[in-house]
């Protein structure tokens, strides 16, 4: 690991000033960053440790009906917060389907958003990677790429964003609160992560020094609690990243869908909101035929980036299954194998 200076700021403002310097990087739990530093993939000159900052580890219910999650809340604490899990069950299930219990105890909300891709060529410093080293090329393009992107990719980069958490958050219109050199601002989570285009090294809308201080769910997000699921296919049932995942959330009134939310994970450089699919579900009965049409729309623009054409059909089926599970109703308890299509809980309509 390359040597670095360590700085522990006393305030958010001090942190922003320190992290805005070239070569500086924020440190939260470090569950991804330290791994990247050990491999020589990330080589910061200075770590700005935000874990001792006050006031960033609260889950606040807002007067308007929304919720504000501090950036330093751990994945485990958020998923196991009874009121949060009841109000946003797909978010809790997504959190519990990610990583291992040890990592969930350490990993933070802010860090989850800013974790890096798990593309093997990004991790292997002997390989060419436009994300790690702009302009060097992409060895994933002709390499082992069965898990790579099928939506929003470019010739320069076919990596995916690995977060489970971001998938239901994007579906529920999450907002990211950022402290930066020019003060506080907020952006939609959907606009935080960038698609690769010609600049895959620029992964987010962040400027130097920007610090995630909180993630907010708007009041409307609570309205999907009765019909919300996260479903995740992975190469092994636990402790693995998604090959394809989907968050589905419905509001059903008088036998018809009043509003639908759908996002996909493991398919692009960001959690992929499927608005065209949501549109066709509005006002119709929650039937398999309707869900199949939604799935078709969600993947209309998908194309393989390598040996991964199977992911397109898999994604369609996961969408139908996730919507079917959501329509059947949020279970009283998260299944023993969170988000697994192999969970013993019934209620799935096979696609």
């Amino acid at each position, binding site marked *: *690991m390359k040597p*670095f*200076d360590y700085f522990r700021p006393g305030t958010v403002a001090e942190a922003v000033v320190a992290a805005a310097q070239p070569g500086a990087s924020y440190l939260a*739990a470090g569950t991804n960053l330290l791994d990247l530093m050990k491999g020589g993939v990330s080589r910061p000159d200075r770590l700005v440790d935000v874990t001792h900052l006050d006031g960033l580890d609260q889950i606040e219910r807002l007067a308007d009906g929304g919720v504000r999650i501090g950036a330093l809340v751990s994945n485990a604490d958020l998923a196991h917060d009874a009121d949060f899990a009841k109000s946003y069950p797909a978010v809790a299930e997504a959190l519990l389907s990610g990583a291992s219990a040890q990592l969930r105890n350490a990993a933070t909300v802010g860090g989850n958003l800013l974790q890096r891709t798990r593309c093997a060529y990004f991790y292997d410093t002997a390989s060419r990677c436009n994300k790690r080293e702009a302009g060097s090329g992409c060895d994933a393009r002709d390499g082992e790429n069965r898990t790579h992107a099928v939506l929003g990719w470019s010739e320069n980069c076919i990596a995916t964003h690995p977060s489970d958490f971001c998938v239901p958050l994007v579906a529920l219109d999450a907002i990211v609160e950022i402290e930066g050199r020019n003060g506080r601002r907020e952006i939609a989570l959907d606009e935080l992560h960038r698609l690769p285009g010609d600049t895959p090294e620029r992964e987010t809308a962040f400027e130097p020094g920007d610090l995630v201080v909180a993630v907010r769910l708007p009041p409307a997000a609570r309205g999907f609690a009765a019909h919300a699921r996260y479903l995740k296919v992975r190469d092994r049932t636990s402790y693995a990243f998604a090959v394809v995942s989907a968050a589905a959330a419905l509001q059903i009134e008088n036998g018809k869908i009043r509003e639908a939310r759908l996002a996909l994970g493991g398919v692009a450089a960001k959690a992929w909101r499927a608005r065209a699919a949501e549109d066709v579900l509005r006002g119709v009965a929650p039937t398999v035929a309707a869900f199949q049409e939604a799935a078709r729309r969600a993947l209309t623009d998908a194309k393989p980036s390598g040996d991964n054409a199977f992911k397109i059909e898999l994604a369609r089926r996961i969408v139908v299954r996730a919507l079917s599970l959501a329509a059947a109703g949020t279970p009283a308890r998260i299944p023993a*194998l969170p988000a697994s299509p192999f969970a013993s809980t019934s209620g799935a309509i096979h696609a």
Partner: protein
Amino acid sequence: MNHSISLTVNGARREFVLDDPRVSLLDLLRERLHLTGTKKGCDRGQCGACTILVDGKRINSCLALAISHDGADILTIEGVARGDQLHPMQAAFIAHDGFQCGFCTPGQIMSAIGMMSEAQAGNDPERIRECMSGNLCRCGAYAGIVDAVLDAQAGMDEANQRRSA
């Protein structure tokens, strides 16, 4: 630049001067305190052999910078027994052959102890397997590990009930 930190390790307060911020909690425990029960397996957060409790919660000590955990309360495998009396989880691993070579065992036991305080698994073997998926066992002693956890949990639940009766 040197950094001073203090940690409580297995109940004892310890002060450290770090001349390099790169040292992980794992390396600090093994090389500065010679507490070698906590194992270095992958050193990348994948195998769970380095699992310890920090402020009561299980984490991978290989992915934790010591300097960032200034003030933390740490429990390692060396701190779970009371004198010669094994922790019930240790005894259950022996009773159920929850290991073969033993390399992953301290991490498995610390993870299982952490899991019990999280109270998410209950007595459901499927849930225990899921909650223990961050600990790999190359020998494949998983069946014994699940039995040990179930047994230790039942015994400790019973003991708690006796205490509160």
